[in-house]
């Protein structure tokens, strides 16, 4: 922080700065402290007094080389646009298929699949109230459901993200259809987008299908299986998004995601896997809030810190293993039920922050997502938003275009320091697994959620249409998406017929083998999951079998 060089390079700087400060204070009047969502105090002006660029090579460097602050690839979006990967999950497999094809025709370049909440709960479509089927995700319980979802979709050519928590039955179904279509598994590329069981336990989002220790083991089995048999598959996606949606600040979400990634890497190494090979396939998944500069800084800081952690904690120096590749999703928490069309503006800004943050893959929300799963109309607008940002706005011309901004670089440094501070108590607790088991992380996130809500209620955080600029007359709600109940009844009837008509013996033999592998403690169960699925076993049966062996997860409630 020596001032002398600055005075030498910029004679008169100090005097001009003092002069501006005087004029600012004379004019501003009341000037309350401004803090961003991560609690960092934001000053009115940033100058070479805050960030000089004298650590350019150590802290920023060039795109495609550690510490990757300016991007993980040399060409970034100028060379390869981000994957336009909308989360899709609705209705029956046929409904899903129609939606996927429509979005691929409208600019999508990768796909994702969100299953129905019944799948997240670990049960089949015949075990829950039919009114809840397919409202927020697609009912996928068998290989044939997956086949219908991806009918006519070239699964060897496109990257597929499956929102598929442990024990990864959707992935098993995908491998099943690859086999049926004579596609070698080595050509299947994509991501297990919800493999991060820790984030599920933290954010309580969707499932407690297996116990915490059971989930830990199954994830390692999954990683190992993919390494050996499906090498282009990203078995780990660390989901900071869940934490932020549950209330974590941007810095907290990044910190907890990094702690989670450290935990998974430690676990893989403890099992005897090669750190470099494992880390090369790690990916991340984040939320993009509307706190624009903070989000850009969050991504840059996370990218830099992760590269340093891979080098310093794991002693891995291969740049490919230090790359912080991530998918990001515009934040649903920022969207409002009030005046829903305003959400299009919010989503655009969030997406812009993600693009400037250097993401590899993006989902933009539908403007009606504060009301329901997106309708086809809103899903098309969300895709068009990405198309406009990519093709019309000249955003891809320059790599890391905000890099070098005095403000953004200062903020990137500050958020990085904040993340490092947040990692310390997690390390002290013995790592993320222990910190989640004890409720430490959930407590921190709960406090942040409450504090944020209080800022909205007090009006300190303005939300247009919610606590200011309210307009009840204009407030017309779009119709929510609801699946066709007749199609859903037919799906359940077909499913019951499938269970009757399949080879009962074949299914039983493979499920017995799965139970045996699970009870063996040391055997990798994943091959048996794939075999069971191929033999016609259903999602619910596979989960039930593993629950019996590995235990059922009880949610941990932190007051």
């Amino acid at each position, binding site marked *: 922080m020596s001032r002398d060089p600055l005075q030498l390079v910029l004679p008169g700087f100090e005097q001009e700065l003092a002069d501006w400060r005087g004029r600012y204070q004379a004019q501003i009047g009341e000037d309350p402290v401004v803090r961003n969502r991560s609690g960092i105090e934001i000053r009115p002006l940033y100058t070479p007094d805050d960030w000089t660029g004298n650590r350019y090579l150590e802290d920023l460097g060039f795109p495609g080389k550690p510490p990757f602050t300016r991007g993980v690839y040399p060409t970034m979006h100028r060379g390869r646009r981000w994957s336009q990967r909308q989360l899709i999950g609705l209705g029956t497999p046929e409904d899903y298929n129609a939606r996927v094809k429509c979005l691929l025709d409208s600019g999508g370049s990768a796909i994702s699949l969100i299953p129905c909440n019944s799948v997240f709960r670990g049960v089949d479509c015949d075990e*829950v109230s039919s*009114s809840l089927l397919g409202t927020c995700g697609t009912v996928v319980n068998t290989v044939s459901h997956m086949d219908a979802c991806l009918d006519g979709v070239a699964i060897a050519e496109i990257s597929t993200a499956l929102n598929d928590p442990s024990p990864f039955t959707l992935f098993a179904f995908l491998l099943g259809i690859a086999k049926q279509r004579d596609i070698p598994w080595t050509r299947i590329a994509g991501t297990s987008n919800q493999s991060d069981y820790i984030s599920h336990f933290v954010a309580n989002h969707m499932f407690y299908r297996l116990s915490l220790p059971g989930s830990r083991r199954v994830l390692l089995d999954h990683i190992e299986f993919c390494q050996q048999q499906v090498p282009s598959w990203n078995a780990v996606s660390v989901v900071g998004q869940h934490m932020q949606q549950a*209330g974590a600040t941007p810095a907290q979400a990044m910190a907890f995601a990094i702690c989670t990634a450290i935990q998974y890497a430690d676990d893989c190494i403890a099992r005897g896997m090669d750190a470099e090979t494992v880390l090369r396939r790690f990916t991340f998944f984040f939320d993009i809030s509307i706190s624009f500069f903070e989000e850009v800084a969050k991504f840059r800081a996370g990218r830099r810190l992760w590269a340093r952690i891979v080098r310093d904690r794991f002693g891995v120096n291969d740049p490919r293993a230090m790359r912080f590749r991530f998918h990001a999703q515009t934040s649903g928490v920022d969207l409002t039920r009030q005046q829903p069309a305003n959400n299009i503006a919010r989503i655009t800004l969030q997406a812009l922050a993600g693009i400037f943050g250097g993401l590899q893959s993006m989902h933009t929300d539908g403007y009606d997502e504060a009301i329901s799963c997106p309708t086809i109309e809103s899903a098309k607008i969300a895709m068009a938003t990405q198309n406009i940002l990519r093709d019309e706005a000249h955003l891809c011309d320059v790599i890391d275009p905000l890099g070098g901004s005095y403000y953004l670089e200062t903020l990137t440094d500050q958020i990085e320091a904040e993340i490092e501070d947040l990692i310390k108590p997690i390390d002290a607790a013995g790592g993320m697994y222990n910190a989640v088991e004890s409720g430490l992380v959930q407590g921190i996130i709960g406090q942040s959620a*409450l504090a944020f809500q209080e800022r909205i209620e007090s009006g300190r955080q303005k939300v247009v249409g919610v606590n200011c600029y309210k307009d009840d007359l204009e407030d017309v709600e779009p*119709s929510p998406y609801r699946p066709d109940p007749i199609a859903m009844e037919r799906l359940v009837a077909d499913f019951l017929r499938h269970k009757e008509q399949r080879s009962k013996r074949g299914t039983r033999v493979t499920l017995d083998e799965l139970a045996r592998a699970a009870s063996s403690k040391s055997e990798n169960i994943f091959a048996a999951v794939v075999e069971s699925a191929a033999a016609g076993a259903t999602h619910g049966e596979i989960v039930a079998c593993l629950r019996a062996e590995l235990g059922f997860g009880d949610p941990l409630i932190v007051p």
Partner: protein
Amino acid sequence: MSASVAAPPARVLVTKIGLDGHDRGSRIVASYLRDAGMEVIYTPPWQSIDSVVNMAVQEDIEVIGLSSLATDHLVVPELMQRLRSAGLGEIGVIVGGIVPDSEHPMLLEAGVSNIFGPGATREEIIACVADLAANTRSVRGTDQESD
């Protein structure tokens, strides 16, 4: 004690039924009610309708607050039916979260007292729960207050 008997704190069950586990909203509302001095029984998500009815009996619940983000309100009418069959029709039930306008009538007709969507304030929710608790108590009679 004194002649002006202070009402005992409302006994509220804050819970989620159905398939979804997003609990940010229910946790915040539970904190609000607790801070307002109410007795809050908070559960993890994914309660079965049976377990909600059982808890309502065992915990002497006066108001049930159900949180729904991802369409779980669609099974609330079934819960209302079961509460009535269990002789608990006096319990006030409110739903908070994401309930599209077009589905409000279905819930209100099933006996839900109030629906709080995005933008509902802490004060509105607390006032409503206090009223419903007072109502439940008056239906049940005042014999429990005699000590």
